[in-house]
């Protein structure tokens, strides 16, 4: 798992940013002007690197991508509305990540563990 992350991490940071932008859900575009939390990303945790970031599987149909999202000291991680440590997230967990612009690019403002049934849009 970590080996795979390093492989991804070795790519140019710009690619990670582009990937994050490409698969970010545009719902937050309706946020008020000047709002710093620009985009939201939903996906499945593939790997966690404590204190550094999380790999998330996302995509469209079977055109799947792995996005590496960095965390910092201000990132809030929650599950069932309770704060949890990043390390408590396990591979396979569905998460909703709100991104904000950090000094070195996008960084997770919040990472929320999502229960089945809390999927975007709810039931159709």
């Amino acid at each position, binding site marked *: 798992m970590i080996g795979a992350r390093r492989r991804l991490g070795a790519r140019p940071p710009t690619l990670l940013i582009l*990937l994050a932008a490409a698969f970010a859900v545009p719902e937050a575009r309706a946020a008020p002007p000047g709002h710093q939390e620009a985009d939201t990303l*939903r996906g499945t945790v593939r790997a966690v690197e404590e204190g550094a970031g999380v790999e998330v599987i996302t995509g469209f149909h079977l055109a799947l*991508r792995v996005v590496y999202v960095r965390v910092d000291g201000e990132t809030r991680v929650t599950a069932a509305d309770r704060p949890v440590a990043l390390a408590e997230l*396990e591979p396979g967990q569905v998460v909703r990540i709100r991104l904000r612009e950090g000094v070195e690019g996008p960084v997770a403002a919040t990472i929320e563990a999502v229960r089945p049934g809390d999927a975007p849009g709810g039931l159709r």
Partner: protein
Amino acid sequence: MRAPALGALCVLLLAACEKPPELGEPLDGLTEDQRARFDEGRTVFDSVFTPETGLGPLFNAEGCAACHSAPVSGGAGAISEVHASALLPSGFCDPLADRGGPVFQQRVTPALRDALGIDREPIPPAATDSALRTTPDVFGFGLLDAVPDSALLALADPDDADGDGISGRVNRFFDGRIGRFGRKALVPTLAEFNEGAFQIESGVTVPNVPDEGTIAGDPFPDGVDPAPEPELGEEEVARVDAFVRFLAPPAPAKLGRDGRRGERLFGEIGCAGCHVPSLRTGDGPVEALANREVAAYTDLLLHDMGEELADICLGSVAGPAEFRTEPLMGLRHMERFLHDGRATTIEEATLLHGGEARASRDAFEALSPEDRSALLAFLGSL
């Protein structure tokens, strides 16, 4: 009084004699605009891509109809593709998304072959399993898309609470939404199924998949992809979506006495426990799709089909042995059966069912030759 009554009778008779759409034709009841979109979409569906118009560098086919063509556009096809994933000891299913997975394209453009000397995308060593996937037909998929999630959840019985040995459950996409399209029921909506297929199958980038991905995790060399991204615009994608969405389901053939007995046996031996004869669509903006019965013979749920059919895991739910109940509408137009095409007859496919379907399979085997023939006559009418 007689004349209006006679008129009403004529209208009823005409309605009763109204023929269902032919295979490859659109649903009844479309507006003129929807019908026009359907026709426009068929043109894009039937088009052939080249590297200059977006094909590749990795691809499985040069266009939609290169696979979905038998016996008409939207039908099944002879091409199989290759999927792979890794089931880790923790139970987590890795779709190998950072190494080109889960679909590994089987063809390359001349430019990519010249640059790297490869003929297909290699499956990475990290894969624990691979699988063949045949080309399904897409008739009636718009109706399947219009069935509410709540209907799927109502059919699901993940813990087999009713004790009938059948425990269907929904798969979920990576963002948590309920899936229904694909052999593992991973893809939530027809719009995604249609648009994503351009990139996955033909290497044609689209607005929602604006990059070519990787070659088993490695970047594409410079100069092998001459067309700018996205290679297909929103309007063309929408046209193809309209074509697939409005394709009518195949009308079943008229049943004779044997077929009617076979239909009854289909229910009696438990086939209908998963191959649910009819689903009902919900409300929606397209009148031709809303609040309709669709004789799909599926519950769109995952079922354990036994170790003999098992191949790859996919998504957060579907294990190697779990497959979505294949819709049986249009069965008589198919030439290969099961997810990987290993069966060449309906009877062979039925006998290969295992897992949750074992009891029904055993009951099928135990039928008298006449009853088995009747059941096959029914299936051959779909």
